């Protein structure tokens, strides 16, 4: 441990999964195609996406979030949901920037590396909405699944596995088709739940193994 740095509570280095990646995204219907693209894309790079919705239980939400961030080597944050939502009282969503702040704080204070990447839908908007992180590279996805896949290939350019956007689109198509069946099978309308999330990740990994040669 570097001098002058305080060890974080409940420090467990062995608990870090080098391929686990925490995803911090808005859980709404409009974001669903991008959510599927993110799962497909990350699995195409040999990573395992983790999200707060996969952990059921009575634990405080904040504790769950922080525990997940600590166990993941990387975290990806989407800060595109800055608009006021339509339901009254009309408010923007602060969860994503808040969790980004937690990840940045963890990356700065922990004595093990933690990488964080930020995604946005519109270019230059973050300079207005979250200017504190100016100077950091922001990946723009344009609110389109192919944009997410393209942004991932840029963000993970130094990855050992380098699937093409075409290959990632193949995985995305499989995940999208399977999502319909999973919804029907689990009698649910939402994919933002523990079981659908886990099954989508497993399916995306199965598909990635078939489509990306280096993952076999």
């Amino acid at each position, binding site marked *: 441990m570097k001098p002058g740095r305080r060890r974080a509570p409940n420090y467990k280095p062995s608990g870090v999964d*080098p*391929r686990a990646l925490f995803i911090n995204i808005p859980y709404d219907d409009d974001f669903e195609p991008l959510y599927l693209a993110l799962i497909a894309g990350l699995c195409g*790079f*040999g*990573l*395992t996406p983790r999200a707060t919705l*996969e952990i059921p239980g009575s634990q405080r939400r904040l504790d769950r979030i922080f525990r997940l961030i600590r166990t993941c080597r*990387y975290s990806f944050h989407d800060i595109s949901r800055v608009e006021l939502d339509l339901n009254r009282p009309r408010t923007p969503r602060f969860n994503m920037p808040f969790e980004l702040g937690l990840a940045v704080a963890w990356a700065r204070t922990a004595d093990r590396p933690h*990488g964080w*990447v930020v995604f946005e839908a519109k270019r230059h908007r973050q300079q207005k909405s979250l200017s504190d992180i100016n100077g950091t*590279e922001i990946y723009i996805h344009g609110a389109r699944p192919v944009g997410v896949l393209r942004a991932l290939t*840029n*963000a*993970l*350019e*130094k*990855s*050992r*596995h380098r699937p093409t956007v075409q290959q990632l689109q193949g995985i995305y198509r*499989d995940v999208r*088709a*399977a999502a319909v*069946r999973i919804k029907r099978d689990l009698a649910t309308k939402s994919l933002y739940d523990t079981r659908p999330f*886990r*099954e989508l*990740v*497993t*399916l995306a*990994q*199965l*598909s*990635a*193994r*078939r489509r990306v040669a*280096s*993952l076999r």
Partner: protein
Amino acid sequence: MIHVGGGFPSVEKTAATFGISKSRVRWLTALLDEIEQGRANSPRRIRKAKMAGLSTRYARVGRSPVAASKSRAASRAKVSRRKKTARRRRRTL
């Protein structure tokens, strides 16, 4: 830009981490096979249109995208011909 090394997490390991049973993993594998099979068995016109990045709207009614385009042009030509004929008739009245 981040660097990700290492191999690939085995699906079995992920399933175990997530608490997904082996039978459910088998179901997911079968679902994936079914999706691929379905895609392979789709009509040739639809497959070709998709591969060319064109709309499958016309392929679905049994026409190739090129034929659909020709047909649209033909119908536009027909309308234009009708208009010209009508104008000519008005002139000769």
